[in-house]
């Protein structure tokens, strides 16, 4: 019976280790679903690696080979599947998932080595620990927490490097301890295990927390920008209004002198006055610069347009919003990513228009079905490249914007995007299916 359990344990141990490692890895990658084929192949490779690693006579090889190789395998899969573009982040996740996969079993072994138990009990405890490791990994997966730390880590290279270094250091430390454990110079310490766990959790949660913190700061800044934009817009409206009042005053005067001219039947006087009215009214009255935002239901969209209008105003780009019906799409209300998409498109339009002679950006919102952004441009853009990751026509830009837009559109069935590049106009047309 004991013999059987022992053999069973030896065979299943690597299976558990590889499965747990994969589960952690996919959780860390933001619940990425690997295809069945990948899962099977990876598990087999990890299984073989762990089997071989445990089979070595030399304690040093036994301690370090399997863990190192499994990190490399995870890294390779993540890299081939193109889930995350940054290699450092991948390596971090691979090493953290390897650390997490071994932790439960290590802890159990420490405990059993401290309290001497019969061999039979220890073997069954080993098996139990493996099952527990799987359960822990699955429970964590069930939490469905949005990680979203990749972009954050990419932006904070120093933090990423520190985290990566510490995770690799822990890995190496662990291998050393495993070596000493194997040559029986080290019997395990609960303190070390807890220290390890807290460091691993710190590696996972520090970026998550600081990411949330930054998002919060962003929100506050965004609010400030909105306030500033709406204030300056109010100021513009006030100036326009006072101009209008001046005109109204002048207009009454002109009418009075017209009446005088008519009464005295002096044709040349009438003519002079009339043409001065025409001239004045052409100067003052038609003013396309006033935004027509009262038709937009979504407050966030409204303030976004205001902010962009302000940016365009500072760059002396004429920014028009044409809207003639009430615009309200429920599907996109409060969707931060949608506002980001519109923001990216408007930013691009303003930046492109700035380089042209006409400097116009027009945004059309039509019948709750379509948002069209038209800007003047200098040449017909090559559309085959624009949505690629890392392509940008602008200097010092990462080329992330349109890639993000494309990803967003691909994820949403009810939104379609058409891009039209003409000689003098660049048009982004976004269509919504209203359910």
């Amino acid at each position, binding site marked *: 019976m004991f013999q059987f359990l022992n053999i069973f344990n030896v065979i299943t141990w690597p299976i558990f280790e590889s499965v747990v490692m994969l589960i952690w890895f996919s959780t860390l990658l933001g619940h990425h679903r690997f295809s069945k084929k990948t899962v099977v192949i990876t598990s087999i490779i990890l299984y073989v690696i762990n089997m071989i690693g445990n089979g070595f006579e030399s304690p040093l090889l036994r301690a370090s080979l399997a863990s190192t190789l499994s990190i490399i395998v995870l890294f390779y899969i993540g890299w081939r599947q193109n889930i995350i573009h940054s290699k450092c982040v991948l390596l971090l996740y691979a090493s953290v998932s390897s650390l997490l996969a071994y932790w439960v079993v290590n802890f159990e072994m420490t405990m059993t080595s401290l309290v001497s138990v019969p061999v039979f009990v220890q073997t069954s405890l080993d098996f139990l620990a493996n099952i527990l490791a799987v359960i822990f990994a699955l429970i964590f997966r069930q939490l469905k927490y949005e990680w979203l730390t990749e972009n954050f880590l990419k932006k904070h290279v120093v933090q990423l490097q520190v985290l990566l270094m510490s995770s690799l250091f822990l890995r190496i430390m662990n291998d050393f301890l495993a070596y000493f454990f194997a040559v029986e110079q080290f019997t395990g310490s609960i303190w070390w295990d807890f220290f390890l766990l807290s460091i691993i959790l710190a590696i996972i949660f520090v970026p998550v927390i600081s990411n949330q913190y930054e998002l919060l700061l962003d929100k506050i800044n965004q609010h400030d920008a909105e306030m500033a934009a709406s204030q300056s817009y109010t100021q513009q409206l006030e100036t326009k209004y006072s101009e209008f009042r001046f005109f109204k005053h002048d207009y009454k005067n002109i009418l009075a002198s017209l009446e005088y001219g008519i009464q005295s039947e002096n044709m040349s006087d009438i003519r002079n006055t009339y043409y001065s009215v025409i001239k004045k009214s*052409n100067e003052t009255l038609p003013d396309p610069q006033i935004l027509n935002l009262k038709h937009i239901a979504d407050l966030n969209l409204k303030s976004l347009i205001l902010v962009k209008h302000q940016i365009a105003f500072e760059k002396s780009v004429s920014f028009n919003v044409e809207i003639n019906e009430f615009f309200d799409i429920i599907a996109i209300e409060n969707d931060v990513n949608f506002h980001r998409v519109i923001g990216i498109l408007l930013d691009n339009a303003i930046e492109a228009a700035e380089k042209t002679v006409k400097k116009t950006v027009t945004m059309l919102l*039509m019948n709750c079905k379509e948002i069209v952004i038209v800007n003047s441009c200098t040449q017909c853009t090559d559309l085959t490249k624009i949505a690629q990751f890392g392509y940008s026509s602008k200097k010092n830009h990462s080329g992330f914007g349109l890639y993000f837009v494309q990803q967003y559109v691909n994820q949403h069935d009810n939104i379609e995007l058409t891009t039209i590049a003409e000689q003098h106009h660049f048009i982004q047309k976004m269509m919504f299916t209203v359910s």
Partner: protein
Amino acid sequence: MNYYLLEDNVVQQRRIQQIIESCQVFDQPISLLEALKADKLAKVILLDLEIRTVENVGLNVAKMIRQFDTMSQIIIVTTHSEMLEQGLKYHIGMIDFIDKAQSEILFTKRLLSAVTEAEQQIRLQSGTQSELITLPNGKKYESINLNDVIYMTSSQSQSHQLTVCCERKNIQIRTTVKSLPKLHQNFIQIHAAYVVNKSKVVAFNGQTNTVQLNNGVLLPCARKYLKTMRQLF
């Protein structure tokens, strides 16, 4: 060429008639629409946006015209110059937007140039048979003139992004290369990533296996499609 005008102000009617003499004037949208339906030829239509102080009547009339007539050219003559210029261009394919409140000389000049451009457009269209083709764009559709299309290609990185290269513009939509040849007999696939419009192919080089198009672009022809290309050229 026939000219139609929708305008309810008698002074403005006379003003425009002085510039374009053969213009038929209407002050009711319904009678205008009936007259337009009776006239099958391509025509130049001048619209005022505001009829009897009801805003945007002209816009709705233009939309209704476009439902049965895509050939005619629409020119908007209005005092509402402050908005919707781009929207109208885009929506009803209007050719120009003329502000009534400008001086007589400028107004005449603008109106005449707009009419000339409209006539030119109509002449251009009548030379070629225009056939509209509907390209799928995700769950929506994008209509485009068959004669404009030169070739279509999918960007290498994402197979569902398709770029349609036209005579004067490029359009990007979301569809697959495979679905294109079924849309029209003129669309021929020559490569996993390229579909060309048959009428735009200038030459086919059998040695280098390249297809030359009328805008000078050279496209590779894959071995799989060589047979059909040899039969055609």
